């Protein structure tokens, strides 16, 4: 009986159900799309923030004070401590290994240019710093795989006119200001002297960074190591990692935490816990957050995701309004049916039951269709904004269905209450 009544209602007047279903599909599609995007936006933006460069600095623990101005270390090579290059693969074995986007070791060597280059005016200072690093280097990981990293990943704002040097070759790029000063061009052989030995490097391009590297020669790490007489060693490491913005919990001292709190802290990608895990795998190092980058990143991430949540809330509200209004309209339209049912002896409860069953049925069908449409919408949105479609979250389906059913019921509740109180005779008369 019940199914027959509901079935008849759908079969007899499908056009009326269409308005309600359309509102549901659209409303739930927008709700699904915004929820999918907002749940992904933190991860996506954190990845975008890596264009700011590294957010962790790893240095030897027992080091002398670095004489660093604007990111270039001016210490002589025989001063201070060094770290072994061979250990670096271990960085990809920490708990949050997949959050390590890239890392670049650095070794600076002061060099002189013994041969006056063409265009050099007499009496000019012909000294500069040679920065040794990885450009695009394959690092062997203890689990047998390799990981490709270097400044091309950690320093995306570095631009080279020409080509990047190969990591094993005797090649270099020259900073744009230094190149101007020395009159060096791409393809030249650059003669330089370090620690009394003469070297010659092939210039593959002109580097422009907008930073102190514009005044330096940047060469593969192996070249700097042989110039400094420090094979297999480097001075500092810049690590670019995906992190979660720090909150109150992250600022607490991990040594004072209970075991459960400690586990939670360890298993959350806070920058402090990633730094801690780096210290675990690389003994004798100090790993610190580069606060300038990390703090503003956390700051802006919190703001933007807060904003997106509020906008999502507005979307949910708008969807609720749309569905509620459509639901109320469909019930109001059928108020004469209520009169007829009442005249035939149905109680208010029975009538409400029939109507609500219908609404829920539409809500489920419309909710599923809206979810599908919303996923497509979210994919399009994610693809066009971030170039990557957001992850499909099936957990959202029940959430969306519950919202759809609740809203459809709520929207029909008010008109149904009114209908239940009405006398059947005036309704049937059409008043």
């Amino acid at each position, binding site marked *: 009986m019940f199914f027959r009544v509901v079935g008849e209602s759908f079969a007899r007047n499908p056009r009326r159900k269409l308005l309600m279903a359309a509102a549901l599909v659209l409303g739930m599609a927008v709700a699904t799309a915004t929820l999918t995007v907002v749940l992904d936006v933190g991860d996506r933006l954190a990845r975008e923030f890596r264009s700011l460069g590294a957010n962790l600095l790893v240095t030897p623990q027992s080091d002398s004070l*670095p004489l660093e101005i604007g990111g270039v270390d001016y210490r002589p090579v025989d001063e201070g401590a060094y770290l072994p290059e061979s250990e670096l693969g271990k960085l990809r074995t920490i708990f949050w290994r997949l959050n390590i986007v890239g890392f670049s070791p650095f070794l600076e060597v002061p060099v002189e240019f013994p041969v006056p280059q063409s265009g050099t005016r007499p009496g000019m200072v012909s000294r500069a710093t040679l920065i040794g690093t990885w450009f695009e280097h394959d690092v062997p990981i203890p689990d047998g795989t390799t990981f490709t990293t270097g400044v091309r990943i950690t320093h995306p704002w570095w631009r080279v006119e020409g080509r990047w040097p190969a990591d094993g070759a005797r090649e270099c790029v020259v900073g744009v200001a230094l190149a101007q000063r020395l009159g060096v061009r791409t393809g030249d052989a650059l003669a330089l002297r370090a620690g009394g030995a003469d070297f010659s490097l092939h210039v593959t391009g002109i580097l422009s960074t907008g930073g102190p590297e514009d005044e330096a020669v940047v060469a593969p790490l192996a070249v700097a190591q042989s110039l400094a007489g420090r094979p297999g060693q480097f001075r500092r490491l810049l690590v670019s990692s995906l992190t979660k913005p720090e909150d109150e919990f992250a600022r607490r001292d991990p040594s004072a935490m209970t075991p459960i709190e400690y586990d939670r802290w360890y298993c959350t990608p806070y920058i402090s816990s990633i730094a801690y895990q780096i210290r675990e795998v690389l003994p004798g190092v100090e790993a610190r957050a580069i606060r300038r980058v990390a703090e503003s990143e956390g700051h802006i991430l919190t703001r933007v995701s807060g904003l997106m949540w509020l906008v999502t809330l507005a979307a949910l509200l708008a969807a609720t309004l749309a569905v509620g209004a459509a639901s109320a309209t469909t019930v109001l339209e059928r108020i004469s049916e209520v009169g007829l049912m009442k005249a035939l002896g149905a109680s208010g409860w029975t009538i409400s039951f029939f109507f609500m069953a219908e609404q829920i049925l539409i809500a489920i069908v419309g909710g599923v269709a809206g979810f599908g449409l919303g996923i497509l919408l979210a994919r399009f949105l994610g693809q066009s*904004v971030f170039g990557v479609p957001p992850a499909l979250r099936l957990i959202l389906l029940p959430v969306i269905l519950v919202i759809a059913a609740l809203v459809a019921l709520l929207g029909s509740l008010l008109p149904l209450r009114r209908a239940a109180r009405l006398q059947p005779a005036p309704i049937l008369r059409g008043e």
Partner: protein
Amino acid sequence: MFWRLLWQLLRASRGRLAVALVAVVAGAAVCSALVNLHLDAERKLTREFRTLGANVVVSPARDAGSASALLSAATLDAIASVRAPEVVAAAPYLYVVARTAENRSLILAGTWLDEVRRMSSWWTLQGDWIASRDDLSRCLVGRAVAKQLSLVPGRELDLHYAGRSVRLIVAGIVSVGGTEDNQVFVNLPVAQQLADLDGRIGVVQMSVTGSAAQVEQMARVFAAALPGLDVRPIRQIADAEGQLLSRIRVLILATVVLILALTALCVLATMAALAMERRRDVGLMKALGGEMSRVVRLFLTEAAILGVVGGVLGWVGGVFLSGWIGRSVFGSAISPRLDVLPLTVALMFGVALAGALPLRLLGQVRPAEILRGE
């Protein structure tokens, strides 16, 4: 006659109109709040990006001859004379590699500490900051320096350079999480006297607000005011900021457009339902000999009034809504924008009229059928 009819119409069905008005007001409020938010979010976010500190650097021209060329103090006067409100802070720097009494090298940075404070929100301080740039007896030390030299606020620090020396009192210890942790900060004249470089500075760092294009523009203004010097935005920050902002802007815009469309649809549905309820009135008027065009005009005017009144009320609601969102997300209210008002009203007006259009179809219906209730 027309207006009297309209007035009666509005009065007689105020219950139903109130429901429709609520829908229009709610829709207009969401629309105006989001448009307002979208217009202001970028400005707010560029301000947030200033927590990244300096983004423009003035340095000696690249072809000046040597890497160790210095700027003169006249540069600072020239920068000050530009006096643009976009410049949040500007600080000169002179770096000196000084030696401590234990013969350890460290970098002494001479600057204007009052200006540095304004572009270094991420520095944490233990002890006191040096608030005046005329304070020549005290210094701030980086965390790593303090650790290596076992310094605490109140201790004295002797620094030597080329036979000259200076005795400073440690005012505070700064923890920066960068190269600054290895440096000692003093006011500019201290470094200039120690290095015997009176009136000379190394670089000037500036924090300038605005989009990447605006910062580029400011850099050009400064370059024109400082002939022979090299003024450039720090690319690490400018690039990342531009990229992030454009992503966030598109994201917010896309979501806002989605919500606008949904809200418009919702209002449209409500208006259409209202119009359909008017079927009987239309039938009656037609039976009494009313011209169809006049009848339709009557109901369209009703819908238009609803749209305009709802739009204005919704805009007011939207101002409060966006103010609240601004305070809870950015900690500062979003200024209401008057140009959103016509936009909201026009949108609601259009949607209300579009919703009332099905009434035109009633023109083809014979009044008897409608009055019979079919």
